[in-house]
């Protein structure tokens, strides 16, 4: 916001100088050009910063899943939240259209799987976790479980569970 203020101030001063230059002081052209350079530079920095934020948010979607933790959401502006929701939606439509009737979840199985069920250890207290056939598992710190792969993958990526190799 501060840079926008600065840009607006510079632009207004530039306008004043342009009108003055037109009325017959040609050596002020350098000044105008100088200010124009500064404006362009500020614009470039702001754009690059915002674009980088977008790239990071896109990466977060692939790492964290559809719901971002509230502390991240607190730092995002309203436009960024909207962009994130739209990205989520287009990703979901794409995934649905790719793999047959039910669609294909591209965020699963980033590394090629070796077996259907995997051994996991819980790193943090997470609470209860329900599997497909209805049983709930209580995830407390350091408890080990033998769970189907597709359910755990998200939690492992988020750092809640830890995958153990035998």
């Amino acid at each position: 916001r501060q840079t926008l203020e600065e840009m607006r101030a510079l632009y207004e001063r530039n306008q004043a100088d342009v009108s003055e230059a037109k009325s017959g002081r040609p050596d002020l052209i350098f000044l105008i050009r100088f200010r124009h350079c500064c404006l362009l530079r500020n614009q470039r920095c702001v754009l690059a910063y915002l674009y980088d934020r977008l790239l990071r948010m896109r990466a977060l979607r692939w790492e964290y899943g559809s719901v971002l933790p509230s502390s991240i959401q607190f730092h995002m502006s309203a436009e960024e939240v909207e962009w994130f929701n739209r990205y989520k939606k287009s990703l979901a439509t794409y995934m649905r259209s790719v793999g047959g009737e039910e669609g294909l979840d591209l965020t699963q199985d980033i590394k090629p799987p070796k077996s259907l069920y995997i051994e996991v250890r819980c790193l943090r207290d997470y609470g209860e976790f329900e599997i497909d056939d209805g049983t709930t598992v209580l995830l407390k710190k350091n408890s080990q479980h033998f769970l189907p792969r597709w359910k755990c993958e998200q939690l492992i990526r988020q750092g809640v569970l830890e995958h153990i190799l035998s």
Partner: protein
Amino acid sequence: MSDAYFPVDPGLGLEENFLSLDDILMSQEKLPGRAESTLPRLAFALGQGAGTGDSLPEGSKLEIPLWLAKGLHDSKRRIISVELPKVYKEAWRTVFSADANVVDLHKMGPYYYGFGSQLLNFDNPENPEIAQTILQTFITRFRRIMDSSQNAYNEDTSALVARLDELERALFQAGQKGLNDFQCWEKGQASQITASSLVQNYGKRKFTDMEG
């Protein structure tokens, strides 16, 4: 291991990438130059006058960042004329041709290659030689970078990396990453699902935010 965050790379050759953060940092580096004609009211902004009403006399020496030099440079050269920084001049060029491996490129301005490529944008009779020197230094140093990046596993690499400029550091890190991935695969960790590095870094940073 496989990260989803892909930042914009710096540009190669004569053009920079508009949105690349590396390029923006690189174009912040300063160049020596000279004012070709009197510049009214600019003295204050460029740090040499007493008040806003002063004008810079013709021929005064300036140190300007690259982005400003590119903007103010005109083919008729009415405003600014640009001189080469020390590193790209004759004396240093002979040093580079003698032995390029010895030079501490990080101290000479951490963006030797990128900045040099941008310098070729300004007309200068020595441009072909500058281009040739940059290319030759890169070729000579590359072999050593590749060797060291592929053979330093789990070691402290700060001694190796200290004398490289930013482009070379990026190459070094790419080599290291490849080496680490290969070692993981050899140990059988390729099929182990890990928490992503973003998550791990984010967890660490959150604590500092809350305390600070």
